């Protein structure tokens, strides 16, 4: 009789073990921590996107701090709200403006990245972006004279930044849209680290940044959107402690009266939407702000120049997908990248140093 009870209980226990628990609880993941940590999540709408934050920690405090970081940066950096630092700067008509720490810091950071990419990233492109209607959704193909005259006010090197003040020449406007989310994720990840968190993943509107690995030690799995068929994944990236940021022509575009598709990534050199055969650029690296800036800049540069840039600098890896569906993956990341089953392996090419 007792034997059967044991077998019976074993059966039940066995199948209970099959049930999947959503609320993972992990204790002593780092060995150094004595209190239990569990998965805490938050979702919010900010910076014109949908954001998700997941961290393995003891309570909700780190997530609340992360939301506070996002809100305060949004207030400083928004180009559309009239009382932001950026709006004050854009309306200063040549006056020097004293800015909050983060805004000044990010502008200086971004100017370095404009320099590094020889102007392929240019934070003064805003007036042209506006002329094409990408800031309002009221799209139009501008007349060539307008682009020509607005281009005279596009040149990042005319921006002068001192300690905590910045001066724009009159008629210039800046927009930190190409770097703001990367900077924000850097701030959140470093705050998480300071709070003792060793495992977290955040997505700021598809800009992904991870801290450490998953609590079980395995890598985070990041799905990459197929730019030519945005409702599907083209493959998966397995990463630890990295930011993964994509710029794609599929994100925002319009079809003009001439039947041409115009994307929101605009060349600072000629003022026209980029049309160079690239459908998306994904940059993988330690720094969110670098990955964010490069994903735009490498898109603008085109494939050859992007590869050259990668060979010259050792601080990032990239995946370039062309309009024709070819996937170029740099050497350092190709072992972590796998194409989805339906995609042909022949379409993948590894770029070596």
């Amino acid at each position, binding site marked *: *009789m007792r034997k*059967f009870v044991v*077998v*019976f209980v074993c*059966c*039940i226990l*066995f*199948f209970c073990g*099959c*049930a999947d628990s959503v609320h993972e609880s992990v204790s002593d993941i780092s060995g150094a921590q004595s209190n239990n940590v569990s998965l805490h999540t*938050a*979702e*919010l*709408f900010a910076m*014109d*996107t*949908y954001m*998700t934050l*997941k961290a393995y920690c003891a309570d909700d405090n780190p997530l609340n701090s992360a939301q506070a970081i996002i809100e305060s940066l949004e207030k400083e950096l928004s180009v559309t709200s009239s009382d932001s630092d950026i709006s004050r700067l854009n309306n200063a008509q040549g006056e020097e403006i004293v800015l909050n720490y983060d805004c000044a810091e990010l502008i200086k950071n971004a100017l370095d990245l404009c320099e590094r990419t020889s102007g392929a990233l240019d934070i003064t492109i805003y007036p042209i972006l506006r002329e094409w209607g990408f800031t309002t*959704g009221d799209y139009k193909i501008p007349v060539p004279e307008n682009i020509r005259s607005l281009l005279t006010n596009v040149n990042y090197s005319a921006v002068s930044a001192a300690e905590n003040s910045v001066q724009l020449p009159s008629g210039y406007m800046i927009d930190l849209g190409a770097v703001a989310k990367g900077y924000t994720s850097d701030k959140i990840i470093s705050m998480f680290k300071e709070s003792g968190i060793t495992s977290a*993943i955040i*997505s700021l509107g*598809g*800009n*992904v940044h*991870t801290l450490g690995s*998953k609590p079980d030690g395995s890598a*985070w*799995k*990041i*799905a*990459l*959107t197929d730019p030519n068929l*945005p*409702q*599907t*994944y083209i493959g*998966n*990236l397995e990463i630890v402690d990295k930011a*993964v*940021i*994509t710029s*794609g022509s599929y*994100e925002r575009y319009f079809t003009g009266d001439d039947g041409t598709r115009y994307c929101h990534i605009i060349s600072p050199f000629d003022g026209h939407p980029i049309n160079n055969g690239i459908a998306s650029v*994904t940059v993988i690296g330690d720094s969110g702000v670098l990955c964010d800036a490069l994903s735009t800049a490498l898109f603008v540069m085109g494939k050859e120049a992007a590869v050259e840039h990668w060979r010259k600098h050792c601080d990032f890896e990239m995946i370039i997908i062309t309009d024709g569906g070819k996937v170029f993956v740099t050497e350092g990341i190709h072992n972590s990248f796998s194409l989805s089953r339906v995609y042909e392996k022949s379409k993948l090419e590894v770029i070596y140093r």
Partner: protein
Amino acid sequence: MKKHFVLIIICAAVFIAAAVSSVVMLNAPAGDIVKIKSNGELLYTIDLSNSPDRTIIVEYNGKENTLEIKDHKIRVLEADCPDKVCVNTGWLDSPAIPIICLPNKLIIEFENNDADAAAR
């Protein structure tokens, strides 16, 4: 002896029932559970595979999104929002792309996602 026999039968029955239900549960189509969230708050978790056709109205700040469930699929049918991105997204058909209405802070997405995040 008879008692033993009955116990064996009970054990076997429990084992088989548990085995069958485990297989059914573990093989349930991963992409059929849909979550509907308004401003970060989970309003509905719906299993599309056995949900009848119906419409759901989600209100946020006096603005409404009308969701339609039909033939085990879900979409935003109508929305009080300026850009109608949510309506134009059409039927939810991939875990890669949730239906998002930014103005009304509405998210409709599949629950099961084999990746931890999607880069886009």
